[in-house]
């Protein structure tokens, strides 16, 4: 398929996780089940967070945009989780700094650069005052609709 997929199974609200590894496992597993990524994706994702973390302090709250080497991805896809309680990611801007992350946007990006538009859109979204606050309070089905409508997946 040539478009980026946001499926309902990969949108989570009130996700319970004690740390980022747990949260990322849930998200990665949802993509693996749908065969969008390879088995190797999760480990590569976790390893990448050590040297090149993806936590970001946005206006309203902390978020993360984890992604990794395109070779672990079969189908461009996005998994999103709003956490019940924030988990810690290191800061993309300064890896010594910790960020309390409330919303994770896990990107499965393959070699194709077609869908980088979605990263751009997510980045614009997090700069909008109030958007993240709104997202973090939506029920799951509303969040799924919102993401499918707001983010262009072409």
């Amino acid at each position, binding site marked *: 398929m040539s478009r980026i997929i946001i499926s309902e199974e990969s949108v989570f609200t009130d996700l319970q996780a004690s740390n980022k590894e747990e949260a990322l496992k849930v998200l990665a597993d949802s993509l693996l089940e749908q065969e969008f990524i390879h088995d190797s994706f999760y480990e590569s994702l976790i390893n990448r967070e050590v040297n090149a973390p993806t936590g970001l*302090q946005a*206006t309203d709250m902390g978020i993360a945009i984890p992604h990794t080497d395109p070779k672990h991805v079969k189908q461009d896809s996005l998994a999103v989780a709003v956490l019940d309680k924030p988990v810690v990611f290191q800061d*993309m*801007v*300064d890896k010594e700094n910790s960020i309390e992350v409330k919303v994770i946007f896990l990107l499965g990006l393959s070699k194709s*650069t077609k869908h*980088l538009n979605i990263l*751009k859109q997510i*980045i614009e979204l*997090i700069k909008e005052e109030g958007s993240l606050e709104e997202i973090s309070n939506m029920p799951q089905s509303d969040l799924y609709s919102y993401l499918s409508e707001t983010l262009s997946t072409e």
Partner: protein
Amino acid sequence: MKKHIVFACSSGIATSTVVAEKVVEHCKDHGIDVVYQQAIIGELPSLDNTVDLFVATSQVETKLNTPLVNALPIITGFGEEEVLEKIITLLKG
């Protein structure tokens, strides 16, 4: 004016692509034509001295000769204007 830039990030395609689009457009508005390529951070030493500027969205620990700009502000939005200005200054300088 034509300049060569390497945009680098950890994955080689994600944040560097987002930044490349913004920077290239900004340069165009200032009369600078940009030719660019993307790379992973680890490739920068081998590309040193071959282009006019490195723009990275990840921390670079190695000492390089080519001027380097950290473009994370373009991702976060905080300090974006300053970074774009700095890039223009470095390219025109």
